[in-house]
């Protein structure tokens, strides 16, 4: 069974490929959805195509599946339309799967289940990374706003933070939003906000 993974994120594709190889599948190819990826895919004649549901290139792929004369057998999305739980899990995990006509669902199901598990695990790690990154940049912005206040209003660090916090509460905003506004204003006014 030839499996093609179309993915923009090299890391996610690798995580998925690794899992599939461990499970005994060895005809696996990764194509990023750029340039003439559709022509490459056509030449490979895959049995199963796995693609990130969030990829903007899904419409391009589906058009190719509709009009291609090179593919011997039609490819349709998911294999067992009656298995709603499976489809729901796949969509939640962000997996879309296209399977050639006639491939038995028992053969495809383990591949799909594995893709769902690996995609979910990857999304979790990604989410944690994003959260950490946001927290870090939020802290930098607040620190900068604090030092502007400390310099221009001769406040202690503690008082500067308290001022930001009460301004945020009064305006119903987040501290980071108030801090960002302060930095912008300071830049505009040439306050040399450090």
């Amino acid at each position: 069974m030839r499996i093609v993974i179309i993915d923009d994120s090299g890391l996610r594709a690798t995580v998925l490929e690794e899992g599939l190889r461990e499970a005994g599948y060895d005809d696996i190819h990764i194509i990023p959805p750029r340039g003439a990826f559709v022509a490459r895919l056509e030449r490979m004649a895959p049995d199963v195509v796995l693609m990130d549901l969030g990829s903007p290139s899904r419409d391009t792929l589906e058009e190719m599946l509709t009009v291609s004369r090179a593919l011997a057998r039609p490819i349709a999305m998911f294999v067992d339309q009656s298995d709603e739980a499976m489809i729901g899990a796949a969509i939640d995990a962000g997996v879309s799967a296209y399977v050639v006509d006639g491939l038995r669902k028992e053969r495809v199901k383990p591949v799909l289940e594995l893709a769902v598990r690996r995609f979910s695990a990857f999304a979790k790690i990604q989410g944690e990374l994003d959260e950490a990154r946001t927290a870090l940049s939020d802290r930098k912005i607040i620190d900068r706003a604090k030092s502007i206040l400390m310099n221009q209003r001769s406040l202690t660090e503690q008082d500067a933070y308290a001022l930001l916090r009460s301004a945020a509460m009064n305006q119903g905003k987040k501290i980071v939003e108030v801090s960002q506004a302060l930095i912008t204003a300071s830049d505009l006014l040439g306050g040399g906000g450090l």
Partner: protein
Amino acid sequence: MTTDLKIAFLPLTDAAVLVAAREQGFAAEEGIALELVRSTSWATLRDRLVYGQVHAAQMLAPLAVAVTLGLSQQPAALAAPYKLNVNGNMLVMTSDFAAALEPDVARRIADPLGTAHDFAAAIGLWRRKPVIGVVHRFSSHSLMLRYWLASAGVDPDKDVVLRVLPPSLTVEAMRAGEIDGFIAGEPWGSAAVEAGLAETVAIGERIWRRGVEKVLAFREAWLEENPAIVDRLLRALAQAAAWCDDGGNHAALAELLAQPRYVDQPADLISRALSGQMVARAGETPVANPDFMLFSREATPFPWRSQALWIYSQLLRWNMVEHDAATAAKAGAVFRPDVYRRALANSDVAMPGASMKLEGAVDLLLAVGSRRGELTLGPDRFFDGQVFDPERIEDYLAGFVAGR
């Protein structure tokens, strides 16, 4: 009691009514907590609706018909009781290619037939078939582009290459030289113009003065099982649409849409379609097209069955579906004026008396039969003067073949 509703959308200016319903509190007034789910491809938006991950979706009208007819992956009966807008598309091409067309962009846009013939003549001089991006096989854009090309004898399946790509990738594809032009919903045409990559070649509103565009689509079964919720949502959308049409709100609306969680493009680009001030070539004075995108006036949201049938006629014309009476009836029934009437019965929204009309027959403003209030329909001509009679689809199509 608050009802949670999820609606999928794509980052496009014509998501305006949904965004305004949420952000300006129109949904909340009807007791609806609206969650808008951003999608980056029509395929994913479709899957989220068909497999029940969202309650409704901002859908290309032809895609709603195609899914119902089983032409786009898993067949599912969809129902569209409300049109989110009419018009809003723009065809742009690289400056190289546009050099073969009328240089005065205002005149070029005002004369789609002349421009189509200029385009047809230029194909022969071009070193290869022009590659034009469309956002989906079953998009209003693709159907309009085909209509426009065919008017000058260009066969859209043979003389050009139509490449499907999502609106958000159009500008990059043009920069990379993968496409020579594209037709998409705003603000993507304007983004390509602003980047100095392209010029406006045609705008949707001049191809069909009142072209059916995005609809609010539900799964038919869910729509039938939840009439009270559907009615509340439609009332909220009608209020939001009136707000969106009001020129005084366009600046605020553009700011709302510009946010990263919606369209994520500069407010300046977004406001062009809202105000109809279209910059057709970077740095030039805008060309005024006040009807570039409509949300509320002229009963814009009313889902005329004749418009679903016009879509069906175009699917037939391009051999995307086999003709029979049952299929035609199924396509027409995707649009649900009955639900629209029920939901907005006690509102001040003007209500057409009929559910079908001739499409393309109105030259100037026309006062028409209405159950309540004044209803004026705007000019809805096709640029080639053809009139679509939904009860004579075969005659209509025969007219095109003869004209080729």
